[in-house]
């Protein structure tokens, strides 16, 4: 027996289960979507709660004003965060010196000079560079860059700030290059054509038209690169050493905030010890630094965006 289409439609309309599904699905999906919000809340709460426990044992003023980080001392352990911040800034500074000129130059080359064929080859290769795990970069810094540097400057020690700084720089080049290139490519072609028609050279177009117009995007890419460098963990854990220092020495062992967290996690700092809670205080400081950078980058790209 055949049923008519109308009957089929009527039948399916009567189905209760279908109506319930249509009502339930949005709720279920909303719950799933809230996982990402819960993750953020989880991160912030975990960091704050454990950090507060840490501050019941170590005074806040010692932490933010102290310039000695000696957590493993048997008596008189000191928790002044500055040596770890200085270590982080050393790495970040070198990384930026390496990555900004190369990254932005590559972006200008790709968006202004390169032919489509060159771009089709270079961009995927940069993507590969971005996909290399950081542990591999760390191994590269320790077993290649450091020995090469040592052969030129014998005073550089096996663990130092320069080699991991350079390699962190190499790691963030693809990020700065591709985000800057995106910003430059979104500058309308008509503006470029206008300048070229007036007799400008390609360099003049790039330097006086494209770069100023894309400046907000370029700065945002650099700030995001900074944030990446601050949070980078494995390269510094492997190649920068574990000596928190409050000085201007780049040739010897240092320690960053991230490397300290790894050092404590690797050893068995018992649950509930002051050292255990200290990794949350350091993690919270790190979180504040990177969060500030990310918000700044978002602000830069919104605030100074030129609309065409």
């Amino acid at each position, binding site marked *: 027996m055949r049923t008519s289409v109308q009957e089929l439609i009527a039948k399916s309309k009567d189905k209760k289960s279908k109506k319930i599904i249509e009502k339930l699905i949005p709720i279920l999906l909303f719950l799933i979507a809230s996982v*990402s919000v819960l993750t953020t809340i989880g991160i912030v709460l975990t960091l704050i709660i454990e950090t507060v426990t840490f501050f019941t044992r170590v005074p806040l003023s010692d932490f933010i004003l102290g310039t000695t980080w000696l957590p493993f001392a048997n008596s008189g352990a000191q928790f002044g965060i500055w040596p770890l911040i200085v270590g982080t800034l050393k790495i970040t500074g070198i990384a930026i010196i390496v990555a900004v000129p190369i990254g932005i130059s590559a972006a200008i080359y790709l968006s202004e000079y390169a032919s489509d064929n060159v771009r089709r080859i*270079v961009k995927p290769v940069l993507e590969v560079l971005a996909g290399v795990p950081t542990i591999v970069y760390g191994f*590269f810094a320790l077993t290649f860059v450091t020995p090469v540097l040592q052969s030129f400057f014998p005073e550089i020690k096996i663990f130092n700030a320069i080699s991991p700084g350079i390699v962190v720089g190499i790691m963030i080049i693809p990020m700065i290059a591709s985000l800057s290139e995106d910003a430059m490519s979104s500058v309308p072609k008509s503006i470029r054509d206008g300048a070229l028609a007036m007799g400008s050279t390609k360099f003049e177009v790039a330097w006086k038209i494209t770069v100023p117009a894309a400046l907000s995007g370029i700065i945002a890419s650099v700030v995001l690169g900074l944030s990446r460098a601050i949070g980078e963990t494995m390269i510094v854990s492997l190649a920068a050493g574990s000596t928190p220092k409050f000085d201007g020495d780049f040739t010897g062992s240092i320690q960053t905030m991230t490397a300290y967290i790894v050092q404590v996690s690797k050893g068995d700092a018992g649950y509930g010890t002051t050292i255990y809670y200290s990794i949350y205080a350091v993690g919270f400081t790190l979180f504040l630094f990177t969060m500030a950078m990310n918000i700044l980058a978002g602000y830069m790209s919104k605030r100074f965006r030129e609309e065409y």
Partner: protein
Amino acid sequence: MRYIEQEKVVRRMNGRMVVNRVFQGLFMFATALALLALVILLYRIVSQGAGHLSLDFLTNFASRFPDQAGIKAALVGSIWLMAVVAPTSILLGVGSAIYLEEYAKKGRITTFIQMNISNLAGVPSVVFGLLGLTIFVRALALGNSILAAGFTMSLLILPVIIVAAQEAIRSVPGELRDGSYGMGATKWQTIVRIILPAAIPGILTGSILALSRAIGETAPLIVVGIPVIIQFLPEGVMDTFTALPMQIYDWSSRPQAEFQTVAAAGIIVLMVVLLFMNSIAVFIRNKFDKSY
């Protein structure tokens, strides 16, 4: 009055052309430097580690003796980890993307969730490790199991998958949707039968790229307390395990030079796994690249 002084223009022309050439060379040189870094990196690792690669390396457990050290436990552990991360992160990521693109009303809450996702993507992976240590390892008492590490990694790559899935869903043309509604389909039917099938290549490509990031991440694993030396294979998600990057980290940080060779061999295995995953992603992208 003359607007253009021809003599001056002619006089300066050569200089401007030279500047243009010089900078073109500089920009090209910088790009070449970045590419060169990749070539040196790959060459160094292959030349260091290739000698240690053998079938024994894949089938041996870790050892105190460099020539007997193998990567079996780490390789199997990484596969177990992916078996937890892939379903968890894809389910959460695609679900969130469907909600944001299809159900959420444009308003404060949606903007907030969206902003939250992009901020989450900028949180350092070591901080995710601290979250995993507190919530999964301690509060939910999962210990240093595959499940605890897998959940931590899933949250880490969640923002990447959500954004990729959102883009894939957004690129499904409106006519397909309207056509489905016009035939009397409900919203959920339209999503399951029309939108998701059309968006799947994009979702899969993004997910595989995100998973290949998870397989190379080390810091969160160290923080949640995953051990390195393991002489057995895990039998379930509640067992402890070790993973490729953990094993490589351990070998790299040993003082004996022989272990650097072992570490390089381990890196080759990791890079081959990554290359394999990436080629699947590229294959899917090319195979299903429909343009509407």
